[in-house]
């Protein structure tokens, strides 16, 4: 049992901290998706990270990665969040899908651009009629000689407006039911027939879009893995989507908590005894979450099953939503009055029990796949 870094991990962490000390100031303006300028800042940050060797940590070196265990991705995300730096590019799961399933030709063609952050990628999974029920998606990619013709609509596509490529999950085998008929394709977002429509969130965020595909032609060589293998690849990606990102999330919550405690400590915010106790309760939650996420991450070799990820997601959501309840009560009237940041953060905390599969679905996954309870 060892919750501390081993020497190699400690060295990596120290190097990263030094790099942040030297370079973070150049990116103080932060990142975002509200405007062309903020997107440009985001890309500049991603490229700086890639250049410094902090992108694709857990990807094989042969494709531009660094061949390190997942825990390094976790350390990266935790340190960035703790330092208040912008997040790392969320491409680990996409890169793993391509690296672990695509042909050598496709890998050689697209991975350098992805891992070097020269190209921006998005992920086209959810559809208006297929949210929690992803296997019910209806976007089709019809085989037609040496190409597929894509028709349909995706939603909640993060960064779609600014993306060069999309990893698309679509129905290629109309004869096969639900998840058996799906395949994964790399689609050039500049192709004719691709159209994006911005989604503005209640919080004001403009990161998401709907993407419409109208007879979009995709070379057959852009198929990732085999036809009908889409669901398996998507599940494989889930394992890479959570763990390391969770460490970043914990870092972020830790920062929110530390700021709140500092506000109370300095008297910047008036907190009665009841609030101070609730803040201590939230502090307990966040610390437990940290050790739990570390255990999840350290305990898995390469990848883990998605159901364990559902446990972590449920815990994270519970901890986060409780934390924001306390933080908003601490803020008092300035939670609703004045700068909209606190309320937007709170709205985002409410989205955590929805995005990536609702809390209800996550609990069902845990009950059926981990606890072995029978299906209805």
């Amino acid at each position, binding site marked *: 049992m060892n919750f501390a870094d081993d020497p190699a991990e400690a060295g990596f962490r120290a190097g990263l901290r030094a790099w942040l000390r030297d370079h973070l100031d150049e990116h103080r303006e932060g990142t975002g998706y509200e405007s062309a300028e903020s997107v440009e800042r985001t890309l500049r940050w991603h490229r700086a990270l890639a250049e410094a060797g902090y992108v694709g940590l857990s990807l094989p070196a042969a494709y531009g990665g660094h061949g390190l265990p997942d825990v390094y991705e976790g350390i990266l995300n935790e340190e960035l969040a703790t330092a208040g730096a912008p997040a790392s590019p969320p491409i680990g799961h996409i890169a793993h899908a391509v690296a672990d399933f695509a042909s050598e030709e496709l890998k050689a063609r697209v991975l350098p651009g992805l891992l070097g952050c020269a190209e921006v990628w998005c992920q086209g999974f959810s559809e208006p009629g297929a949210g929690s029920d992803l296997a019910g998606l209806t976007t089709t990619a019809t085989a037609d000689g040496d190409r597929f013709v894509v028709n349909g609509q995706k939603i909640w596509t993060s960064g779609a407006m600014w993306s060069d490529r999309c990893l698309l999950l679509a129905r290629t085998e109309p004869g096969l039911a639900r998840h058996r008929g799906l395949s994964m394709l790399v689609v050039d977002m500049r192709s004719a027939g691709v159209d994006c429509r911005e989604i503005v969130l209640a919080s004001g965020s403009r990161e998401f879009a709907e993407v419409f595909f109208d007879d979009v032609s995709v070379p057959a060589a852009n198929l990732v893995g085999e036809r009908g293998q889409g669901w398996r690849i998507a599940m494989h990606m889930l394992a890479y989507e959570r763990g390391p990102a969770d460490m970043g999330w914990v870092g972020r919550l830790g920062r929110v908590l530390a700021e709140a405690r500092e506000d109370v400590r300095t008297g910047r915010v008036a907190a009665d005894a009841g609030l101070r106790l609730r803040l201590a309760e939230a502090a307990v939650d966040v610390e437990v979450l940290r050790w739990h996420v570390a255990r999840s991450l350290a305990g898995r070799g390469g990848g883990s099953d998605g159901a364990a990820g559902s446990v972590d997601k449920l815990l994270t959501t519970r901890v986060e939503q409780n934390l924001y309840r306390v933080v908003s009560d601490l803020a008092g009237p300035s939670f609703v009055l004045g700068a909209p940041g606190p309320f937007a953060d709170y709205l985002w905390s*409410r989205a955590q029990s929805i995005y990536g599969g609702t809390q209800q679905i996550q609990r069902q996954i845990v009950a059926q796949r981990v606890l072995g309870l029978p299906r209805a």
Partner: protein
Amino acid sequence: MEIELTAEQRAFRESCGKLAANLAARWHRGRGPHDIDPPTPGDDSWSRVVDSGWLAIGLREENGGAGASVVDLTVLAERLGYHAVPAPVLGAVIAAEQLQTWNAPPGLLQDLAEGGLRLAPALDAGLRTLAGAAENSLAWDAAGAEAAVIPATGVAHALGDALPFADPTRAVRPLGAPSGLPAITLTPPGEQALARLGAFTLSLLTADLLGTMQAALDAAIDHARTREQFGAPIGSFQAVQQLLADGHVLVEATRSASYHAAWAVDALPGAEALRAARVAKAFASRSAVEVCESAVQVFGGIGMTWEAPAHIWLRRAHTGRTVFGDEHHHQGVIADDDPHRS
């Protein structure tokens, strides 16, 4: 005991609902936070409000009102909340009630009842109680209002631009210099009358929260009936049913508390009515947020978008909770009511 709305009150509820829906439909919340209509009603909307008598009914007859009961007023407030009406009706009604309590001249109150003079109530900087002085105080539900009066001085203050506020259906504006209105001669009310004013205000806010949570729940139920996932309406899944059933329980309990608080304003001594109203406002504040959060959850991803109405209810629940004191504030007062040693 006779705990339900009368036939007249049910008819009034229906007519209020019609106009409230109409007022809400004339307002557009835009395509995002960068693109919001201000909550200020157009002239046409405002004259409909005035013609409906909403601003007058609560005032005493000698002040140009109809002397309606507070239960009647909460019937109106509930419908305003249900349709998330942006016109500042509650603000105007509360400002008038405050001035009536401070024994303002009938002529002034008639002006308010007829909508000729548009005032908003002034609250302290924490939006918790009616303000005792102009400094740092804020007018709430003040869209289109000309001024806010500080009763202790009788001075009407001009209002600044609306501050950023989580709820786009209501404006909060800082009090500025004295406005052009002449100072008003007021007589301080007794302790019981002040307590009654507090109970009056909290009862209206409670009813607004009740309408808000009922609207969110109704919409979530509709969505659950029609939205399909896994080949069935999501409302047929037990996990969704559990959430919505709990929401319904909270709505009905809040309705009971709201009826009781409103009845108490007219039926009980001021201090008792205020206690009943604190209980109702505290319960409604926590319940409205919980129900609106559940509604957002049932809506799923779509509920997080600006174009879906779910966030408007959630915003109104949070701001209605904060204004005139949230559950922690009122529960704190209730805790302190018991002298204690520890």
